[in-house]
């Protein structure tokens, strides 16, 4: 235990930072003598270096976390603020699966579990995670074994069965937060029901961690989580300027800390740095793309395996995603947590995430974003893996087009399995969509 803890702390504080500095120095040397990045994009964000450092350290420390500190695997919409005061190292399988998507190793991991009988119709994040567990393959080097599995159904029901499979594999406790779906307004009895589950989960987490939650520490974490979400919102809001100082696709990568490190000071420090850089770019008129002609809204998760190709295709024609409903979700939920009432406010915040709300609420969010960010078009990614996000998009498309007089495209793909993306017809549709702007 003491040895593991020492390894964990060394990885976080000494070895990791040293390796990263060495890598940065090597890259800087290799870059020297070369000109600035060309192509249709604006100059790269300086903060990206810090982002990579932050995430690399998180995953490096994770390799040594089990046995050193309690480890929880959590869904992206789980109220992680309640675990932080107990010293949990939180692993986000969805965030990890996105990494696997970027590196295009999802087919290989998926094949491993498809051979065990899992259907390819199952969410590609679930297949990727289970495939990584079965094969041990991960771009992170190693994922720490969980002591606790934490699942919240506010993003989908698949997570319940996925985490039950993980619980059966790891033979560790699974805590479930069931959030009733919000049709119109939340019902009076829904929030006490969710709150009671939060109190139960903390009791289980305390047993696993072997300590009690310090109310002061919980207050402090809640303050930091709320601040982190507010800062992330400020980063996103810089794109209301013309030109937007970064691309919507940049936002997909920079959202990792608010998902995986929410409630920690390093997350907030990062977003202050990013916000300042973005605000400075706005002042100086520096855009995420060189020539911003049209501004679009993106709905749903990105296609992690094709972000570079798609952003280039768009940027070359002067199109930028000024906002995305997905990145915005993390700016809206977290700001509702309240240190004066950590349980009650978390119940409210986590019940109201975008995927737990009915179509008219989702339409309201898209309409507001399109207006606030002055979008003249929208792309709705019909994501084969994420049914809750994709269902209703045909209606959303019609309503958005009619009510806002903007052009809207439905694009069939998947967030991380490239086998569900027909690149040629897909890019052709996107190109035709852009041509229709004249």
């Amino acid at each position: 235990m003491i040895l593991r803890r020492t390894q964990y702390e060394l990885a976080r504080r000494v070895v990791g930072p040293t390796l990263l500095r060495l890598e940065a120095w090597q890259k800087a040397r290799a870059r020297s003598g070369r000109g600035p990045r060309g192509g249709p994009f604006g100059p790269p964000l300086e903060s990206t270096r810090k982002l990579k450092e932050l995430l690399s350290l998180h995953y490096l420390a994770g390799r040594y976390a089990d046995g050193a500190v309690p480890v929880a695997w959590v869904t992206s919409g789980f109220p992680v603020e309640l675990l932080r005061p107990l010293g949990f190292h939180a692993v986000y399988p969805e965030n990890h699966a996105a990494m696997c998507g970027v590196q295009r190793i999802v087919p290989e991991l998926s094949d491993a579990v498809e051979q065990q009988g899992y259907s390819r119709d199952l969410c590609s994040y679930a297949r990727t995670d289970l495939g990584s567990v079965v094969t041990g393959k991960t771009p992170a080097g190693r994922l720490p074994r969980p002591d606790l599995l934490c699942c919240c159904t506010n993003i989908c029901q698949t997570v319940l069965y996925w985490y039950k499979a993980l619980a059966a594999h790891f033979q560790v406790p699974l805590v479930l937060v069931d959030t009733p779906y919000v049709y119109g307004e939340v019902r009076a009895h829904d929030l006490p029901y969710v709150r009671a589950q939060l109190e139960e989960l903390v009791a289980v987490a305390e047993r696993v961690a072997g300590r009690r939650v310090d109310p002061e520490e919980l207050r402090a974490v809640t303050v930091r989580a709320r601040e982190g979400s507010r800062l992330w919102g400020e980063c996103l809001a810089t794109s209301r300027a013309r030109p937007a100082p970064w691309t919507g696709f940049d936002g997909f990568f920079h959202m990792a800390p608010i998902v995986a490190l929410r409630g920690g000071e390093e997350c907030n420090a990062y977003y202050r740095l990013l916000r300042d850089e973005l605000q400075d770019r706005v002042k100086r008129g520096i855009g995420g793309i060189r020539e911003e002609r049209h501004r679009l809204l993106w709905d749903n998760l990105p296609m992690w395996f094709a972000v570079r190709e798609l952003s280039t295709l768009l940027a070359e024609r002067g199109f930028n995603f000024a906002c995305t409903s997905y990145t915005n979700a993390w700016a809206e939920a977290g700001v509702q947590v309240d240190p004066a009432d950590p349980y009650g406010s978390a119940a409210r915040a986590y019940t109201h995430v975008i995927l737990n709300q009915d179509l008219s609420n989702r339409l309201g969010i898209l309409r507001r974003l399109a207006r606030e960010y002055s979008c003249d078009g929208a792309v709705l990614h019909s994501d084969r893996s994420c049914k809750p996000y994709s269902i209703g998009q045909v209606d959303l498309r019609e309503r958005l087009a009619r009510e806002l007089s903007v052009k809207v495209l439905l694009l069939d793909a998947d967030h991380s399995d490239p086998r569900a993306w027909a690149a040629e017809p897909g890019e052709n549709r996107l190109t035709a969509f852009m041509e229709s702007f004249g």
Partner: protein
Amino acid sequence: MSAAAPGGAAALGLDAGSTTLKAVAIDAAGRILARRVEPSHPRIGEQAERLLAALRAEVGGEPPVGATGYGRKRVAAGRALTEITCHARGAFALAGRPGVLLDMGGQDTKVIRVGPGGEVQDFAMNDKCAAGTGRFLEVILARLHVPLAEVAEQAARAARPVTVSSTCTVFAESEVISLLASGEPLEGIVKGLHAALASRTAAMVRGAGEGELLMSGGVALNAAMVAALAEALGRPVRVLPEPQLAGALGAALAVLGRSG
């Protein structure tokens, strides 16, 4: 439409589709002076160059080239646009007014709302599957040994359509064989196939709203399909003149900077 113009050819347009390559030469007024249509060859670049060279030899000069279709990136052209934009422009030029364009080609079925300037207002396409396209009919009719020239006559002869439930090319093929084996008449099956495809396509067309329904693409040459669509939709279908050439015409107009 095909009369030679005194000023000679102003532009060439090439539509390198998945099933056929279409090329036209137009004059400054947008009239088609010469055309070529050939089944697509895997070496698209070479085939396109050969077709364009043949057109140049026919009309003279070195007019600029506009390209469209999946093979457009393999062609040295002054302008390359998607077939959605080009079909809209070509259809607008041929029809002389806006409308809802249904283009049924080899592997794509597109429904395009064409605006008053020939621009694309909105469009929808079949999903990542060739089930609702010309390829579907081509495969099944070949299996039934029915040449395209006889399709309309066969369908018209049918006393009643035989219901074909699947519009998956692979499953429908086996379904059709099974129907034949159980003694269903060939004419009824041919009619039923068209009705199945028309029903699938009609859903896409209805989504594009009201307006005169125009039709382009190779499938528009199949009168049985046109009739089945008109019946499924309960509205007339106006087949454009030389419907296969709408995309190539649009590409040629685009290189001239014209919408129609």
